[in-house]
C-alpha cells in the first residue's frame, strides 16, 4: 500500500468529477448494473436466499478457525502447500521465495485485489521477473501504468479512444477503437505470454473447506489459463474468503454472479486446489495457497465490524452508490473502492489514514439495499465516524477536533433552551443575509465555519422559522375551534 496524503481524497474526488470520460463510464455501469440489481431484488419472489447466505457467512466467520484448519488439511492431503501470512510482508515474501526457488521468469496474474493490497508486483519485478495482468481490464490498466477504479470493471474510467491509442503505442498495432478488435489484439498478445509463463498467481473468490478446493470465477477464461498452463499456481486468499461446505458455496456463487453483473452464472467457475493428480493430463505441478490475515483478525474480533467480512466482493454497492457514481474509484486510494472500500480500507489500513472515506459517503442506504448479503455498510460508516469523533484506543483513533466537539456541545445547550435558541435563530437570520449567493444558497461561511462550506452549499435559514409558523397555525386553529364552540 502506498502512503496516502491527507488531502488526496478531496483532490482526487474533484479530478473525478471533472473527468467527463469517467463520468460517462460511471453512468453507464450504474444505469445498467446498479439499477438492474435493485430491480432484480425487487422482482425476485423468493428472497430467502440472501438471508440464508448471510446467515451462513456469519456462522462461518464465527467458526473461522475450524473452517480454515479443515481447508488447510484438505489442501495438504491433496499435495498442495498452505502458507499462513500474518502480514502483507509475510505474504509477499513467501510468494517471492516460491518464485525464486522455482527460477520463475514470467508470472501471469488473474485479477486479484489481494495482490494489490499486499503490493506483490513490485517485489517480483525487482527480482527481474516479468509480471503480466491477464484480465483484459487489468491488462489495460497495467499497460497505461494506471490504477483500477472498479472492483469488477477496472478500467471503467477509460473510453475506447484512450484504450485504442494505448494499444497502438504499446502493442504496436494500427489504431482501432472497436472493442472486438481491441479485445482480439489483447487476446493474441496475452495468449503467447499465458502459454509460456512459469507461474500463475490468482486470488480466490471462495475456498471450500470440506472439499479443499478454491473456486475462481471469470468470464474471460484468463483465470483458467493462469491456473492450467503454468507449472506453478499460487492463490492469495484473505482469511474470510471461505465457505464451509459446497452447499454454502452454491448460495454465495449465485449471489456473486447476480450482484456483480446480473448473470445467472459467470462463463467459467473453476474448482481447483492441489497439484495435478497422477494420471491428470494437465494443471500445475505445484500448488500454493497463501492465507492472509493482514488486519482481518482484528476486524473479526470487533463485533461492530465483523459483518464486513461477510462481503462476497461482487461490487454491487459501487454500482448504486451516488458518491462513487460521481467521484469514481481513484479517490478512494485503495484496492477496495466504493462503499465497501470506505468501510474496509480504514479497518485494514488505518482509520486515521483513511478518515475521509467514511466521511465522504452520504449514508443514503442504497448500498445496504443492493448488497446481496445485506451488509449494513451505513451502520459501519457511522461507527467509523464515531471512532474518529470520540477516539478509540483499540483502533488508534483520537478525538478528532476539539473545536468541533465544543461547537456541538454549545449547540446542544442552545437547542435545549427555548428562548435562547429562538433568539439565536433570529440573530443568525439577520447575520446570514450577506452570505446568501445568487443561487439562494450559502456558499461561504465565516471563521472556522468556512471549512464546512468548502465542499458544500448550505440552504439559508427560513425568513420565518418553523417554530413561529407552527405557533401561528396552531393558535389560528385554536381560535377557530373556540369560535365554533361559541357559535354552537
Amino acid at each position, binding site marked *: 500500500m502506498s502512503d496516502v496524503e491527507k488531502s488526496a481524497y478531496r483532490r482526487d474526488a474533484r479530478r473525478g468529477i471533472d473527468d467527463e470520460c469517467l463520468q460517462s*463510464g460511471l453512468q*453507464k*455501469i450504474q444505469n445498467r448494473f446498479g439499477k438492474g440489481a435493485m430491480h432484480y431484488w425487487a422482482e425476485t419472489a423468493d428472497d430467502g436466499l440472501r438471508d440464508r447466505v448471510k446467515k*451462513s457467512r456469519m*456462522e*462461518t466467520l464465527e*467458526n473461522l*478457525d*475450524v*473452517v*480454515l*484448519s479443515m481447508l488447510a488439511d484438505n489442501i495438504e492431503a*491433496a499435495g498442495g502447500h498452505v*502458507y*499462513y501470512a500474518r502480514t502483507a510482508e509475510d505474504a509477499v515474501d513467501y510468494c517471492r521465495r516460491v518464485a525464486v526457488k522455482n527460477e520463475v521468469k514470467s508470472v501471469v496474474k488473474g485479477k486479484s485485489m489481494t495482490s494489490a493490497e499486499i503490493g506483490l508486483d513490485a517485489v517480483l519485478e525487482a527480482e527481474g521477473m516479468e509480471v503480466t495482468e491477464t*484480465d*483484459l481490464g487489468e491488462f489495460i490498466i497495467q499497460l497505461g501504468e494506471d490504477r483500477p477504479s472498479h472492483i469488477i*470493471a477496472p478500467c*471503467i474510467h477509460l473510453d475506447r479512444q484512450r484504450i485504442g491509442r494505448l494499444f497502438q503505442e504499446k502493442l504496436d498495432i494500427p489504431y482501432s477503437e472497436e*472493442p*472486438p478488435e481491441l*479485445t*482480439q489484439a489483447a*487476446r*493474441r498478445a*496475452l*495468449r503467447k505470454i*499465458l502459454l509460456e509463463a512459469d507461474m500463475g498467481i490468482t486470488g480466490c473468490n471462495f475456498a471450500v473447506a*470440506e472439499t479443499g*478446493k478454491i473456486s475462481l470465477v471469470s*468470464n*474471460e*477464461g*484468463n483465470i*483458467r*489459463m493462469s491456473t*492450467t498452463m503454468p507449472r506453478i499456481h499460487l492463490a492469495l486468499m484473505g*482469511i474470510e474468503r471461505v465457505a*464451509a*461446505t*459446497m*452447499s454454502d458455496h*452454491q448460495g454465495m456463487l449465485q449471489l456473486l454472479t447476480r450482484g456483480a453483473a446480473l448473470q445467472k*452464472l*459467470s*462463463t*467459467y467457475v*473453476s*474448482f*481447483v486446489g492441489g497439484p495435478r*493428480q497422477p494420471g*491428470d*493430463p*494437465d*494443471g500445475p505441478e505445484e500448488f500454493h495457497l497463501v*492465507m492472509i*490475515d493482514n488486519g482481518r*483478525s482484528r476486524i*473479526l*474480533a470487533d463485533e461492530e465490524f465483523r459483518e464486513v467480512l461477510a462481503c462476497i466482493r461482487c461490487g454491487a454497492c459501487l454500482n448504486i452508490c451516488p458518491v462513487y457514481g460521481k467521484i469514481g474509484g481513484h479517490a478512494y486510494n485503495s484496492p477496495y473502492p466504493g462503499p465497501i472500500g470506505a468501510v474496509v480500507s480504514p479497518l485494514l489500513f488505518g482509520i486515521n489514514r483513511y478518515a475521509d472515506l467514511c466521511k465522504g459517503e452520504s449514508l443514503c442506504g442504497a448500498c445496504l439495499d443492493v448488497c446481496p448479503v445485506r451488509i449494513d455498510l451505513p451502520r459501519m460508516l457511522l461507527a467509523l465516524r464515531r471512532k474518529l469523533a470520540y477516539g478509540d484506543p483499540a483502533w488508534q483513533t483520537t478525538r478528532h477536533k476539539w473545536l468541533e466537539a465544543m461547537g456541538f456541545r454549545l449547540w446542544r445547550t442552545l437547542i435545549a433552551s427555548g428562548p435562547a435558541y429562538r433568539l439565536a435563530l433570529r440573530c443568525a437570520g439577520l447575520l446570514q443575509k450577506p452570505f446568501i449567493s445568487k443561487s439562494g444558497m450559502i456558499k461561504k461561511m465565516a471563521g472556522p465555519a468556512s471549512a464546512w462550506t468548502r465542499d458544500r452549499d448550505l440552504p439559508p435559514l427560513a425568513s420565518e422559522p418553523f417554530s413561529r409558523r407552527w405557533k401561528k397555525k396552531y393558535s389560528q386553529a385554536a381560535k377557530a375551534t373556540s369560535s365554533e364552540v361559541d357559535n354552537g
Partner: protein
Amino acid sequence: MDEKGAFLATIREALGYPGEEVRTAGECRRLFDPGDDGDIFDRITYRTHVEKQSLLKLMMENAVPLNLGVHPVRSFAAAARTIGDIVSAARPEFGDIRQIIQHDDDDIARLQLWKKFAGQAVTVHTSYQADMAVREKAIASYVGITAPRWAVADSATIVEITGPGRPRSTSLLPSVHIALLRIEHLLADLGEAYALLRKNPPQESVVFISGPSKTADIEAHMVHGAHGPREMHLVVIDERMTADRNYQGSGLFPAE
C-alpha cells in the same frame, strides 16, 4: 506452536475462545451439516424422458443470450455430421494448419471423426493419457471436443471433471469448443449438479462452463472470445427423438 497453530490461535482469540485450545469440526456441527439431498436424487433418478426433452428445450432457450449453440441430434451419426459441419465451417485462428483435439471418451470415439474429413486436411488428435505431446497438440488445435459429465438446463452450463484422457486444456485453448452430451445427463438446475458433486466429491479439478469466453471490460461492450474459446457448441444426443417429438416446435413442443 507451529505456524499454523499460531495463526489459528490468533483467530480463535479474535472470536473470544482461548487461543491454545484447538477446536474441532465437531464443535460446530451445524456448519458442516451435510443436509439431505434425497429429494434431489429422487428427482434426478425418476425424471422421465419427456421431462428431459422439456429440459433440453429450456436449455436451448437459455443458451441463446449466452451465444452458446445447442444442437439436438437423434443419433451418433447425426452428431458426427453436425460436428463435422462445425469443424469444416471454422477456420484456424492462430496459424493455417487444421488440427482438432478430442477427449479420450467412448462416446466421442464412437463418432469416428477421423473418417469425417477424408477430403479435407484436418488432423484429429485424441488426448490419450500416455501421449506426452497433448499440451502441444491442444495449443495447435483450433477445435476442442469434450464430453462433459453433466449439463444444466437452467443456466445453460456444462460441468467438466478433469481426469485421465480428459485434460482441462481441450475446452480452453482451441478457438472453438464443442461438447458432446447424452440427453440422459441433462440436469434441471445448478442445485442438482451441486448435489451430485457432494455425493462423490471429485479429487480432480471441476469447471462449470456457460458459453464461449467473453469480456465487457471496454466500455461495458460485450465481446466474445477473450482468452478462451470464442465459439461454443453443445451437441445433445436424444436417441428417442421422433418426428412428432422434435425440438423444432411440433408435437411435444408446440410452437410459441
